[in-house]
């Protein structure tokens, strides 16, 4: 009798999914940053509809992972925070996209 349980290798693309990226809110943030050069947090909040607290948590987590570069500054007297994807973040997102495509393409309708 042969063992038909999937081995670790069969699930390889799924195992490669980056858990930091995979959270829906972080995925949204990264998706927007992937298609633009940079954006400030006000713009990100408007696009993702996250609360300030949520956005703060997710941006910090992505920054810790080295995926985001966060630049704090001022425009006039008002604070302005600009966020951009790092090269590592861009590569990680590209890998994530590829892995997800692999996984989802193989699923039956």
């Amino acid at each position, binding site marked *: 009798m042969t063992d038909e349980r999937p081995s670790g290798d069969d699930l390889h693309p799924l195992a490669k999914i980056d858990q930091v990226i995979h959270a829906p809110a972080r995925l949204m943030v990264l*998706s927007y940053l992937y298609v633009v050069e940079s954006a*400030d947090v006000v713009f990100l909040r408007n696009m993702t509809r996250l609360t300030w607290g949520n956005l703060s948590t997710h941006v910090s987590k992505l920054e810790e992972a080295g995926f985001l570069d966060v630049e704090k500054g001022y425009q006039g007297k008002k604070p302005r925070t600009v966020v951009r994807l790092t090269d590592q973040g861009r590569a990680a997102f590209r890998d994530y996209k590829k892995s997800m495509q692999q996984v989802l393409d193989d699923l039956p309708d």
Partner: protein
Amino acid sequence: MSQKISLKEAERRAFSTTFQDGLWDIYIGCFALMFAIAPLLSRSLGDFLSAAAFLPLFGFVLLFIWWAKRNVVAPRVGTVEFGSWRKARMMKYNLVMLALLVIALILGALSTVDFGLVSGWVVAARFSLVMLAILSLLGYFLNSPRFYGYGVLAALSPLAGEWLYVNLKVPHHGLPVTFGLTAGIMILTGVALFVRLIREHPLPANDEGQSEATAE
């Protein structure tokens, strides 16, 4: 996640958002207003000066747009720098617009030379085509469908004006009436969008947004 993630759509949405403040509508409306008022001034100032008289108005409107983008729109909607694909597309748009403006200038110059020789309908048709082309291209490159509507309105203005002139003897080829209406629609739409943006995006109290969103 059952919803398909479209990065192109995300980029398109991000780009469109930056043109939903109504400021472009107001600016284009001012151009239409020029076509409405310049004919009224042309008898006393001449064709060139009657159009040039609007330069201070355009300067003022541009100044207002710059101020409003910086102090009203950016704190509410945020700012974004687009990627190289979008920048290349906008560069292409600038080149196409430049070519169109040269064509429009040539056609405009021809109109002042041969106005007595060719029918007013021909002049109006040329004017319409240029208007339609410029505003449709703007709609296409800015991903903003309402500019197609403005294109149609602006294209109809010279033709409807000519009809008013021929049939109802409305002076100045009917342009003050038709372009006046078109300008009114554009400017009112712009103002309505601008007011809606201010109401829908109130300023975060005490700068809670920028500082809180990135608090350690």
